[in-house]
Structure formats: C-alpha cells, structure tokens
C-alpha cells in the first residue's frame, strides 16, 4: 500500500512544525503561575483556521500538543492531559465559532475565544482530575484574565502574520 500525500498534508506538516517549535521554545520559559503560559503556538492555529479551515487547524493543534509533549518528555503526564484538554476545548469552541452563521469572526475574536476555552477546559480538568479542592477556584479569575490578555496579543500577532504572509491555500 502506498501512502500518498496531498499539498494540504505538506502544508499542515510545515505549519505544525512551526507550532511545535514555538510550543517547545515557550516550554523553556519559567512560568509565573502553574497553568500560565502565553500560548503563542495558538497563533499558528488561528492563522491556519482562517487560511485553511477548521479541520486543518484541528490537525495542527492536536499534532502540536502530541509532538510537543514527546519532545518535552511530558507525554501522558498530567501536563499532557491538561494541555490536550485545553487544545480539544479550544478547537471545539473554534468549530462552533467558525460555523456560526453570520458571525464573521476575525483573528482576534477567534484567538480570544480559543484562549478562554483553553484555559477554562484546562482548569476544569485540573480540578476534576488532579486538585479537587475548592480553593483552586481562587486562581480562576487570575488565569482567565491572563487568558484574555494573551488571547488578545495572540490574535493581534495572528492578524499581523496573516496580513504580511503569503500563505497560499492548497
């Protein structure tokens, strides 16, 4: 059996590689609070969503989390579970947002939605699976504020990237 690759597969692979690079580079930075990370790799997801559609964005996002965890050595650890939950939640929200008739989101809207969904999903997973203590909820407002700020920043970066880059679909 021969595996054939399409142009789209190759594009996804390239963009995933870019997202993984950002993901791993970000992993080297110290974190102020557990669960707090700029999430710059999300910029790639948003750019792919706008240029190539939702299914490509889902591939890039999920492959990034998988490969990033293999490179950083966190595969199947709690970090990976939280990261994957966040990615799945943000991709799910992006699916809804991009199919919402007449909404017409731009990069900033998508990015903020994705960041908030990522943080929310990740937080609930952390609460259910690892730290089922009500005290954890004191962290949520801070984390959501950070998610909003980083979502905005990521969206602005994605917009700049889309304006300047010559990413051609297919």
């Amino acid at each position, binding site marked *: 059996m021969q595996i054939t690759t399409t142009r789209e597969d190759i594009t996804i692979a390239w963009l995933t590689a870019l997202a993984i690079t950002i993901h791993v580079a970000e992993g080297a930075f110290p974190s102020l609070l557990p669960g707090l990370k700029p999430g710059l790799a999300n910029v790639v997801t948003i750019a792919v969503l706008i240029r190539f559609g939702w299914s490509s964005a889902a591939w890039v996002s999920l492959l990034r989390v998988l490969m990033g965890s293999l490179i950083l050595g966190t595969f199947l650890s709690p970090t990976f579970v939280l990261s994957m939950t966040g990615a799945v939640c943000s991709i799910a929200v992006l699916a809804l947002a991009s199919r919402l008739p007449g909404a017409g*989101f731009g990069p*900033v809207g998508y990015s903020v939605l994705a960041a908030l969904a990522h943080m929310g999903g990740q937080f609930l997973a952390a609460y259910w699976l690892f730290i089922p*203590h*009500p005290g954890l909820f*004191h962290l949520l407002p801070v984390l959501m504020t950070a998610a*909003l700020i980083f979502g905005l920043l990521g969206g602005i970066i994605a917009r700049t990237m889309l304006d300047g880059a010559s990413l051609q679909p297919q």
Partner: protein
Amino acid sequence: MTRADWTVVLLAIALLPVLYIKLWFSQGHGQQASIWVDGQVMEVLSLDDPRKLSVTGPLGVSVLEIRDHKIRFLDSPCRGKVCVHGGWLTEVGELLACLPNKVMVRILGSDPRFDAMNY
C-alpha cells in the same frame, strides 16, 4: 477587528469582574464544621449561630469559638498553641487541628474528596 471580534472581547472584559466577585468576595462558603476528637466525629455544627464550645480531649478542654460564619480555636491545653495561632476557618475544606489534644476542626463542603492527587 470585526463586530464579532469586538463582541467577544467586550463580553470577556465584562464577565471577568463577575468571576472575581463570585470567586474572591463571596461570603459564607462553608455552612457547617465537623469537630473531631481522637479520630472520631464528635459533632457537626452549623456556622450560622455564634457560640463557644468546649471539647474535651486527652490533655484537657479545648475551647472553640464560632462567630460571623467562621470558627477558631480560642484556647487549647497544648504547649505550642499552633491551633490557636491558626486563626479563623471559613472556606470549605479548611482544617485546623490541635494535635496534642487530638481535636480537629474541618469546614464541610458538599463534596468531601481529596486535597490533591499526585502521580
């Protein structure tokens, strides 16, 4: 920025203060406290009525005080007084113990499970 973008951003900015108020400033988290002596639940008390209460442990009498939906150790016959210095308990899941006198106080939540899990 499209109109949908602005809607999302403004909604998020509007909802964040709600989150802060709900999760940081909401009062009366714990409704009840359980008092344990020597590993046994001795009493479950409502935090609504202010009172002082004496609990007898192996060393002597520990005095607990309930006021303003909070509970604390007022006095205990131990030497370190760690329990007294522990101050007031309000939040669900909070716990304070006088180990020498084997008296423990815990604020009850709806879903008593674990503090944390580690793998």
